[in-house]
């Protein structure tokens, strides 16, 4: 218990002193996970919406595959992405291994199926009568899709929170493709593992608390959006 208290004090100290190393690590975590989540959204939302609204042979299989993304072990993603990016691997010539870009790639692969499957469920559960009504009112396809997404905003924002949460908390994949290099690819999760390994528990706890704080702050902002206009 004392250890946690020490960690808390240390965390506040690091934050208020503006320790540049720790701040750098925290900002980097936020940027990389934020970027990965945003890029995932750009693809996941159209993909999930399309699959939700159309019928085609093999649809159930595709939906199952997308949903499996919710259980996809992130460390497996890390392994395959690093094998692909090794110098000796198929994309080695891009020289992306041990760079922040590699981290964004791995996190994107982890995040995409999460947001896609939840978007799919969110859109699919909208009352089909709403869709018919929009069409009968003469809505163009983009207008209709926009209104459906607005209608599904509660579960959609939950999808974003789930996707962001999956990648901000990821450690194994980020360690493998990023290399945990100080000042370059070290993020809060990998730094926590390193400090724990070195036995510096107060620093590890401090980093953990900062990570929790960031996760909470982002989630709080997204929840505020999500719950706007809810009268309950």
């Amino acid at each position, binding site marked *: 218990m004392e250890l946690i208290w020490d960690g808390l004090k240390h965390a506040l100290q690091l934050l208020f002193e503006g320790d540049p190393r720790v701040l750098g690590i925290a900002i*980097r975590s936020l*940027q*990389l996970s*934020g*970027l990965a989540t*945003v*890029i995932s*959204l750009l693809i996941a939302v159209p993909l999930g919406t399309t699959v939700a609204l159309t019928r085609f042979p093999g649809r159930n299989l595709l939906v199952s595959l997308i949903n499996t993304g919710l259980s996809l072990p992130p460390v497996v993603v890390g392994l395959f992405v690093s094998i692909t990016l*090794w*110098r*000796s691997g198929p994309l*080695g010539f891009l*020289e992306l*291994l*041990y*760079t*922040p*870009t590699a981290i*964004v790639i791995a996190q994107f692969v982890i995040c995409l199926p999460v947001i896609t499957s939840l978007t799919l469920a969110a859109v699919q559960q909208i009352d089909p009568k709403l869709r018919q009504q929009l069409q009968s009112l003469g809505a163009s396809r983009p207008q209709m899709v*926009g*209104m459906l*997404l*607005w209608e599904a*905003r509660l579960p959609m924002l939950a999808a974003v929170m789930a996707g962001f949460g999956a990648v901000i908390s990821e450690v194994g994949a980020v360690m493998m493709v990023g*290399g*945990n*290099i*100080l000042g*370059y690819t070290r993020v809060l999760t990998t730094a926590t593992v390193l400090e*724990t*390994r*070195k*036995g510096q528990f107060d620093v590890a706890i401090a980093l953990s608390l900062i990570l929790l704080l960031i996760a909470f702050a982002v989630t709080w902002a997204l929840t505020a*959006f999500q719950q*706007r*206009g809810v*009268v309950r």
Partner: protein
Amino acid sequence: MNRSKPGNWAIVAVAFFAAVISIGIAQAEDPPRSLILATTTSTQDSGLLDELIPLFEKKTGFRVKTIAVGTGEALKMSGRGDADVLLAHAPAEEQKYVDDGSIVNRQLVMHNNFLIVGPESDPAGIRGLENASDGMARISAAQASFVSRGDNSGTHFTEQSLWKAAGIEPSGDWYIEAGQGMGATLMIASEKQAYTLVDGGTFLAMLDRLDLTSLLEGDEVLLNLYSVSEVNPARFPKVNNVGARAFSDFIRDPDTQAVIGKFGVAKFGQPLFFPDAGTVASAAPNN
């Protein structure tokens, strides 16, 4: 009821996302002249690299990407050409990679000594023994808890050679394979009041967090030699050999060797590593 238009919400969201993206893209530049150093967890956990790397970067302008993994993985990385320079402490294993042409210009850098550490109570009675394999035999006979690195690291290779010399294949509940770096392995040994094999540098650096003492040391098979090697540019044209050579030269030059020799003295009262560059490698192959 709040009638917020979807359009407004979307605009705010897009603006936020755009800001994040642009910041992210600005950060994604690879630093110029970078060099991948494959090394072991013990060199990182002792803190030595934290001191040497900045000196090297300042002197040469190269950006070092230190990938600290177990020796086994560091060697494999070198064997695939995924690293530029290797700093390891498994002479027998390194020699295999020299023989097959993956690494070149292997040079001795420094050494320290392995220690068999364990609980103060020493249930297996190994304190003060001179022969390391004898000590391992007693631990096995007493079925006293022993934590192994279990990760194909230099330390793990040395540990295996000691069991082999004692004619023992360790197995059973008492033999714990941690599969982790030296720091984590020491923490486990301390928690479980078990024996383990550790290099003097890391042990000293972590001593104040551990409940273990050094029980057996001095046997010449416990010599722990660190060498630097370059990944063969003839075989792997993509390696940054200029950087690798610069690092190899840097870590062996007299000024750096002096830094190595003084490392840890202020904090722990004794050095963690003993510089050796330029001397004839007293090859005590680990088998």
